């Protein structure tokens, strides 16, 4: 069995309750941190661990912490980003639902490291039952003296609140999240200033993903160096992967970074191979925002090396022949899947979730959706494919926040790798009008219609 950091105790009966969690050694990192370590020492440990942000961008957590403005004397805040809405990603929910105290322990230790006395968990509104689980867990933690005034008799105090979002994907963007937490409309702010300087109510703020924070107790209990031993190169530690799609065993898996994609998909310990033994067609390795990979680039990179589950290896080849680790929403497609339909589905999501603040994203995402819908329903033309390419190119990089990029990348990758499928949709409109057009007639078997 591979090393497990987050899901080690997940199968202990009653781990959701405070008593069992405490018996299993929970909250020991808080004891260790508050009694024997200074905040800067914790930050140094996290830096040494090489832990990278698990929300999608993969920015080193320790580095992010060290940017927080401690000189201004303003109160500081830690905000946990539990607004997990990326299609294909459901790892944070699993963590919060089954082992809520791990997140709370991580929040206390991390808040201590940052010198924050008021911290928040911003959870998406659709996770209402998880919200209640967390509320209960926080109440238990207050009762046991882990939160509140003078924790463990030290002069460190911390208040922790859970705030419920109202159903907007954009509020997972850190500045939009802060706006929403302040009670405003969740529009991303224009950076700079970064939240580390001016975040929640103008105070220095760090926003971290649930999984990033949940890793901190282990790092404090053991050491940053121990954490860095796991994984490969700059991808250290373990990562939760939300596996879904045409695989035998979908679910949340904790992997040690550095196993191969082949092993992850095909070994019985993880996904258990392809469903119904149908061939693999495409893979979205990191949630809907990242570029899709065609079959020949999944197990091997363009250079012929094995593709690994690491930040670097998944990005190998750039956008031409690679993808991204993203948030770990691992979506596998077999040959019955229609890439055009899938791309349209993603585009529809982004058009629905764009905040409407900046023009390229507001107008562009809607336009992408409309053109893709036209192609998918057999009413597209060849010019539409080039038009799609133009629109995504015009959105990318010109928007306030990364949502525009996230909407553009999947479209670009789909056209780059699966252009023949788009052409098939244009040339054989009668065939694609059937919603299940590739179910009985996988694209591989009719590909010759396009190539000749």
């Amino acid at each position: 069995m591979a090393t497990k950091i987050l899901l080690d105790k997940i199968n202990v009966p009653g781990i959701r309750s405070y008593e069992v969690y405490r018996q299993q050694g929970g909250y020991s990192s808080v004891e260790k941190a508050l009694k024997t370590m200074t905040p800067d020492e914790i930050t140094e440990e996290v830096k040494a661990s090489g832990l990278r942000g698990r929300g999608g961008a993969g920015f080193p957590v320790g580095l992010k912490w060290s940017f927080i403005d401690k000189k201004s004397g303003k109160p500081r805040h830690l905000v946990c980003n539990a607004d997990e809405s990326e299609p294909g990603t459901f790892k944070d929910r699993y963590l919060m639902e089954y082992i809520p105290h791990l997140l709370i322990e991580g929040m206390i230790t991390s808040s201590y490291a940052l010198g924050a006395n008021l911290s928040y968990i911003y959870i998406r509104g659709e996770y209402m039952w998880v919200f209640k689980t967390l509320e209960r867990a926080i109440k238990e933690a207050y009762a046991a003296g882990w939160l509140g005034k003078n924790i463990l008799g030290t002069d460190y105090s911390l208040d922790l609140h859970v705030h419920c979002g109202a159903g907007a994907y954009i509020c997972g963007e850190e500045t939009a999240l802060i706006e929403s937490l302040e009670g405003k409309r969740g529009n991303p702010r224009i950076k700079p200033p970064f939240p580390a300087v001016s975040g929640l109510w103008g105070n220095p703020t760090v926003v971290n993903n649930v999984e990033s924070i949940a890793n901190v107790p282990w790092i404090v209990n053991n050491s940053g160096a121990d954490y860095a031993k796991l994984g490969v190169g700059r991808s250290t530690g373990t990562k939760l992967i939300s596996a879904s799609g045409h695989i035998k065993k979908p679910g949340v898996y904790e992997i040690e970074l550095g196993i191969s994609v082949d092993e992850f998909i095909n070994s019985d310990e993880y996904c258990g191979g392809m469903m119904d033994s149908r061939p693999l067609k495409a893979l979205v390795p990191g949630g809907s925002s990242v570029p899709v990979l065609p079959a020949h680039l999944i197990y091997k990179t363009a250079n012929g090396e094995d593709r690994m589950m690491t930040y670097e290896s998944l990005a190998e080849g750039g956008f031409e022949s690679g993808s991204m680790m993203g948030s770990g929403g691992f979506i596998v497609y077999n040959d019955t899947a229609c890439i055009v339909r899938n791309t349209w589905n993603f585009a529809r999501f982004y058009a629905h979730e764009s905040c409407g603040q900046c023009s390229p994203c507001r107008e562009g995402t809607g336009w992408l959706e409309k053109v893709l819908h036209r192609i998918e329903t057999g009413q597209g033309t060849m010019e539409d494919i080039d038009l799609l390419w133009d629109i995504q190119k015009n959105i990318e990089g010109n928007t306030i926040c990364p949502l525009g990029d996230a909407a553009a990348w999947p479209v670009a990758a789909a056209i780059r790798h699966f252009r023949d499928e788009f052409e098939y949709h244009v040339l054989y409109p009668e065939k694609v009008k059937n919603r299940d057009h590739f179910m009985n007639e996988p694209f591989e078997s009719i590909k010759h219609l396009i190539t000749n």
Partner: protein
Amino acid sequence: MKVTIDGHEIEVEPGTTILQAARMIGGESVPPAMCYYSKLEDTGGKCRACLVEVSKGSEADPRPMPKLMASCKTGVMDGMEVKSISSDRVLEARKAVTEFLLINHPLDCPVCDQAGECDLQNLSFQHGISQKRFKEDKRTFEPENIGDNIQLHMNRCILCYRCVKVAEQLTDDRVHGVCGRGDHAQISTYISNAIDNEFSGNMIDVCPVGALTDKTFRFKSRVWFNKPYNAHRNCTKCSGKVTLWMFGEEIQRVTARKDEFHEVEEFICNQCRFDHKEPTDWVIEGPRKFEKFSVINQNNYTRKLDKVVIKTEEHILEGREQDRIKISMKNIPYTEHESKE
């Protein structure tokens, strides 16, 4: 601090944005701004029309910035080098933004009161493409009545947020804002409230397009048929300095005075704007000049115009003589004089 924009060098104070520096230089390098408004706080960054390329970050860190930057929100650094119209990437991006802004814009300029002083018209004149690539139906909104003085045309709105900032910063109670999100975000009052506030009329002036127009001026004239005059009156609520838009002796519209970047010099109150439409209410200072290329100059009274004489045949309405004879009944006398004979 020294900053270079399209090869023009200028010294500016720290804290100046690239757009402000470009406006100090003036000329063609000034990026278009659809949402930024220097008189209002916290505007800008949204329309992305003012994107520029920073080819050198600063003297200390000369690396170029990888992405195009919104010039209205990016502060200058010492030694920064910026490319505005001299960069193909920038022109490309502006073209793209213009297209994005136009795909859902109704293009009803012929019946729009803003036509002639519309920032989107200017932007598309400069950076637009003549061909349309958007085949779908444009989005539309249900009309909403937001009061007696201001007409809201949500279909024309480009969501610059300027009017929201006006309501936030000039008036006491903001009753309107942006509802919904994505391409169905809309300016609206919650719920169908009338906007009734002493300074609410300034929303009309800051609106870059025809989404908010003056109901007292609605369909009265085209802006280029009006003669603008600077005028003032003693007003207890505002400075009372306005521009009157005259048609003959009639004041058809009152607006605040706008500078060359179409930003008002001083905000005016609703009484000055909507209630004082008699020339005797005002002390007229003299004609107001507009920038050289403005269509408003079509009605330029500073230039001598020749009187137009329409030359027609004298009896054109009666028709030609030979035709009249043809259609008449020959046997019946044509004139009174003939019948007496």
